[in-house]
């Protein structure tokens, strides 16, 4: 038995925190609706995130229809097109990806994986979800106000975002967007404090930090980052709300709109961009780190092999988290900030490629001499590596300041960030749902539907976004609803755009198979048993499946080993659960 924990550690240190009495629900309402059980809250978060994500999916179809077949759909005016792309972007990044990874997977997996009965502040945890739901409802409301939602791009750049030339700029659209973001951040902070404190204080006996599954490391680090990054967005939203409603000029210089002198003056539009990207770049890793963690666990479990280089993986997660706070201005190389910043931010940005590359190496080296089961979760995890490597490498184009200059603001950027933070994390989400669905419901998702869903999604998504890079290489700018009739753009680009649209529609409809599977398997899925993947981590060792309130029955589990004891030489089975005291450990210490 190799223990990768550095230095000598008592196999089972004493409990740091005494057991506390859980809140016990008294009625159906407090058990399933206003629940304080992290597992119920997780499902509420996930359901809400997926529901609003479907809205974003439909918006993406509408924008792709416009790009693929410009002029065919009369109702897609330029204003409507800009509203679609803005809402699609904001929903996907904040209300789907962030909420699903942290609110959904974080809530479900953290207490179970670290051996806690629940989050440490269950009541605040419940509030977190209800505020998130309110934020989503406010966002949805903006579709129904006069003028519609804001159409200034998901980056919300002032001054245009609050002026009349932008859809929703002078209406309620932008106000509702800002209020919704403010609510989201308040709700997230409540949840985020919970995840951090639970990981630090709520671990069971023996669960040292360096024995935690990488899923927990990923979610934990991402949450710490989010708690530090979201305040920048929060103040930016408040300041912009003041500019819009009270006539302050935080982000508004003296300007002339449509021939009319406005009363603003002295503010800085670039200040907003700094605040936005100080949040916005860590946000990329807030989505990516949980995905990194989850994919590590999926690969290790389904390859029946310990994750390669666990310590390096943990340090890479922490290093990426820290570095991601000093790279934000690589989104602003052509923003008009001082050009000398380019030297600094290009250097930091390319340095972050190193810990990221280490993670990729360790994933593929985990496959080496493994015993690879190509289950549906494993297929999604491996497909993630392909799309993540692809999207990460095009990041080296855009991060390297001078290479970014011709590519910035083109479709190349759109292709890059969809590959790396759209397709890649969503493939992990799918993999994770196929992996943990048996624990959540007690039944397996249907394999045939899973295969169909996987192949269309993986190949289709690659067919959408790989060619899109070349549209950008030609020079096609992003955020143009119609590029036909532009001299430097050959006619063949329109053909390619139509192809991408068809691929996008097919991939979109394939997701209906997945949704159907979620409901169908709830009733007709094969019974899973407690540990269908024969995995080591604690959530698979619960006495009941799905786990009951309190997770672990009378006694909390005691942890004796790290999360990756697969195929240990001399062990009877090809896995040793973290709470398994026997096996080679006993033999070695004897």
């Amino acid at each position, binding site marked *: 038995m190799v223990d990768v924990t550095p230095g000598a550690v008592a196999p089972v240190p004493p409990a740091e925190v005494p057991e506390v009495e859980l809140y016990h629900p008294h009625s159906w309402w407090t058990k399933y609706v206003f629940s304080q059980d992290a597992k119920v809250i997780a499902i509420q978060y996930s359901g809400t995130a997926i529901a609003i994500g479907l809205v974003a999916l439909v918006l993406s179809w509408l924008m792709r229809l416009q790009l693929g077949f410009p002029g065919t759909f009369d109702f897609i005016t330029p204003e409507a097109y800009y509203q679609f792309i803005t809402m699609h972007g904001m929903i996907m990044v904040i209300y789907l990806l962030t909420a699903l990874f942290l609110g959904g997977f974080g809530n479900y997996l953290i207490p179970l994986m670290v051996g806690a009965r629940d989050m440490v502040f269950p009541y605040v945890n419940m509030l977190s979800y209800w505020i998130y739901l309110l934020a989503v409802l406010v966002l949805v409301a903006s579709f129904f106000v006069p003028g519609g939602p804001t159409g200034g791009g998901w980056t919300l750049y002032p001054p245009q975002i609050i002026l009349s030339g932008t859809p929703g700029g002078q209406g309620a659209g932008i106000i509702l967007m800002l209020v919704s973001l403010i609510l989201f951040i308040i709700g997230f902070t409540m949840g985020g404090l919970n995840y951090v404190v639970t990981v630090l204080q709520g671990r069971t006996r023996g669960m040292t930090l360096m024995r935690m599954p990488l899923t927990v490391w990923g979610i934990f680090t991402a949450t710490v980052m989010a708690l530090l990054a979201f305040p920048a967005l929060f103040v930016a939203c408040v300041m912009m709300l003041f500019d819009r409603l009270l006539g302050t000029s935080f982000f508004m210089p003296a*300007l002339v709109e449509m*021939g009319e002198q406005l009363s603003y003056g002295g503010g800085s539009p670039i200040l907003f961009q700094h605040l936005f990207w100080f949040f916005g770049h860590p946000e990329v890793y807030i989505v990516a780190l949980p995905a990194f963690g989850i994919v590590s666990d999926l690969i290790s479990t389904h390859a029946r092999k310990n994750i390669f280089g666990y310590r390096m993986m943990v340090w890479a997660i922490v290093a990426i988290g820290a570095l991601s706070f000093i790279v934000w201005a690589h989104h602003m190389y052509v923003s*008009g900030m001082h050009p000398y910043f380019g*030297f600094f931010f290009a250097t930091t940005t390319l340095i972050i490629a190193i810990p990221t590359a280490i993670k990729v190496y360790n994933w593929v080296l985990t496959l080496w001499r493994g015993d690879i089961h190509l289950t549906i979760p494993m297929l999604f995890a491996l497909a993630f590596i392909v799309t993540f490597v692809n999207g990460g490498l095009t990041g080296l184009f855009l991060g390297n300041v001078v290479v970014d200059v011709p590519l910035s603001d083109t479709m190349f950027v759109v292709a890059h960030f969809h590959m790396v933070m759209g397709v890649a994390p969503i493939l992990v989400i799918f993999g994770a749902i196929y992996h943990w669905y048996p624990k959540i419901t007690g039944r397996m998702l249907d394999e045939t539907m899973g295969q169909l869903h996987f192949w269309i999604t*993986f190949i289709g998504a690659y067919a959408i976004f*790989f060619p899109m890079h070349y549209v950008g290489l030609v*020079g096609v700018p992003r955020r143009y609803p119609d590029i036909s009739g532009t001299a*430097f753009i050959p006619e063949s680009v329109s053909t390619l755009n139509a192809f991408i649209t068809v691929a996008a529609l097919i991939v979109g409809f394939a997701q209906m198979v997945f949704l159907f599977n979620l409901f169908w398997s709830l009733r007709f899925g094969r019974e899973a048993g407690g540990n269908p993947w024969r995995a080591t981590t604690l959530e698979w060792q619960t006495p009941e499946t799905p786990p009951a309130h309190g997770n672990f029955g009378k006694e909390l589990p005691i942890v004796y080993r790290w999360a990756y004891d697969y195929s240990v030489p001399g062990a009877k089975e090809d896995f040793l659960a973290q709470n398994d005291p026997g096996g080679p450990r006993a033999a070695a210490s004897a």
Partner: protein
Amino acid sequence: MVFALALVLVVVGSVLFHILSPWWWTQIASNWTYIDGTLVITFWITGAVFAAVVLFMAYCVWKFRHRPGNKADYEPENKRLEWWLTIATAVGVTALLVPGLFVWKQFVDVPEDAVEVEVVAQQWQWNYRLPGADGKLGTSDSRLISPENPLGVNPEDPAGQDDVIVEADDLHLPIDKPVKMLLRSIDVLHNFYVPEFRAKMDMVPGSVTYFWFTPTRTGTFEVLCAELCGSGHGFMRGIVMIDTEEDYAAWLGEQQTFAEISAEQQTGQLDTDDVEAAKSGPGGVAN
């Protein structure tokens, strides 16, 4: 098996797509061939890494697929291998970064002899101002903008009197002369983007940004706005013509200076159509 094959096909397909793709950047029309050069280096290095990683994965998925009786190795760490991979990555990253920063230095440093040309953007059109005989642009302020003075040129500044004003019309530039494009916006963010020049930069109301380039071939090039600027963003187009020295001189001779435009307006000789055109939009009110 099928999946390993699919991974190989992803690599082969991507490489073939790259080689056979008719979609490639426009023929360059400026001095920034170095930018294209760094881009090509980046394609080679990243392409090689992508193929290596995915093909290695494909091999593993095929070679170590589950068969009855198989057992995985137990190997938590391999420090030597991990360090070698880290160092190799650092070398690759340096090979990308160093040439990139070298070219960026050139991009930032404007040559002494570059002629200044001002681009003034507004929703949704392009205007230009060229220095007159004195070679200097006069000062400007968006508070001075009015229908009579659409670019906000300071009438008190003698340097501005001979500035050539090009309003909502094509810009002409002479070939082989470095130009420093001074970028100004009077309302929202815009971005002056000509794909063939490679260089681009945002225009920010309240400040003046810049980039420089040297046009290297004559022709007509389309200007696009590359920073979302409201519902007319997709229609914010313009034309830059790169002329020979003689053609440029001929064009410049036809343009009006700020002083000429102001004088015409004071004596009321400007016909009404031009006044309408000079207004930047309906409902224009001077302060």
